[in-house]
Every structure is written in C-alpha cells, then in structure tokens.
C-alpha cells in the first residue's frame, strides 16, 4: 500500500487530493501505467508526462525511479511559486 497525492490540475482531473493504492509497481512509470489502466480520469491526468513532476517521500524524483520502500508518491504540474 502506498499513499498517492495529487496537486493542482492533476488533483482536479483525478478528483481526489489523495488515495491509498494497492500496488506491486516497481517504478513510478509502472504505477502510472496501472492507474491509467483503471479509469479514464487517470489517463486525462497523466496524458502529458512532460508536464508532470513526481515526488517520492517529499523529494523531487523521476518517473523511472524505483518505488521500493517509498511510502508517499505525489504527482503535480511544474511548480509556480514565488
């Protein structure tokens, strides 16, 4: 089980800010593929990988990163703070 968080328009497309996901995905990319296979709203959110960022346990990471030991995955658009 892993906590998956969504922010900004990713959250809006998926419809929830966070959820617990039962998965055996080995990488972030595998997890994204699993989610997209479930429902259209995930496909809408993950359609353009270039415009998405991912954090693993609150550290910026990449889609090919392994999920072993990770408790929290977050998906969001490029940041626009400041």
């Amino acid at each position, binding site marked *: 089980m892993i906590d998956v*968080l969504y*922010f*900004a*328009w990713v*959250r809006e497309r998926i419809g929830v800010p966070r959820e617990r996901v039962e998965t055996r995905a080995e990488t972030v990319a595998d997890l994204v593929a699993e989610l997209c296979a479930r429902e259209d709203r995930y496909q809408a959110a993950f359609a353009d990988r270039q415009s998405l960022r991912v*954090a693993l346990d*609150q*550290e*910026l990471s990449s889609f090919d990163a392994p999920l072993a030991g990770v408790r929290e995955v*977050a998906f*969001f*658009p*490029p*940041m*626009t*703070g*400041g």
Partner: protein
Amino acid sequence: MRVAVQEAPFDLGAEAAAFAAGARGAGAVVTFTGLVRDNGGRLAAMEIEHYPGMTEKAIASIVDEAVRRWALTDALVIHRHGRLGADEPIMMVATAAPHRADAFAAAEFLMDYLKSRAPFWKKEIGADGAEWVAAKATDEAALGRW
C-alpha cells in the same frame, strides 16, 4: 534563518524592519516581495495550493544551499498559501550579508529556486473563469545560471 509557510497575510514593512534590526554586523540587506498582479483589473483572486510537509523541507533545503554558497549573516523566507486578493504580498525573501554582492546573489538564487523547486501552484480566479498559472520556460532556464 527563518522559514514561514502560512495562510495569514504578513506585514512586509514590519518583517523587513525586524530582519534588518536583527542583521547586526551585516552591511547589506536585500528584500524581495512578490505581489499578486491584478492583470489590468481582470483578476478577482489568486489561490495558492501547496504540499504541506514537502514545502517546508524544500524551502529549508534551498535556504541551506544559499547559506552554503554565500557569506550570509541571515536569511528569511515567507510564503503564503490559500486565497489572496490583488496587490497582496504573496511571499518575501530577505538576505543579510557583509557585502552587497552576496546579499543580492543569494536573494536572486532563493527566488529562482522557490519559483521552480518549492511545491506551490498558483491559480488565477478571474471574472471569466479560473486558470492554473503555467510554469514559464524562462523560470526553469533561470536555474541554469547558478
């Protein structure tokens, strides 16, 4: 060093004065304040979403890096989230250093990294709908200079 991530407004004058008063030994204090632009009157409000937990860690790590790179005597970052009106301060950074070049460079570095590496997302609420602010290629490119 102080980092504040908060929904409440802040008083930039009071923050700047307190920061400078605490900056004993520093000859140079730089502040940057980001304000909500009203886009020629079309903006009703700005909503800022963030990632509680990661936000504080990301900012602390950016401040640590600034302290490592420049001779600073102090640094401050305040960033708001939630709903803001036009012309309200969104965030500020302040740096204090013996020499102005360090204070300026560190403040610009903090801004460039906060823009693109701290997990905040801005949404502009206008009369004609709401829109997430798109990241600018120039902001990402700005990181390359450090």
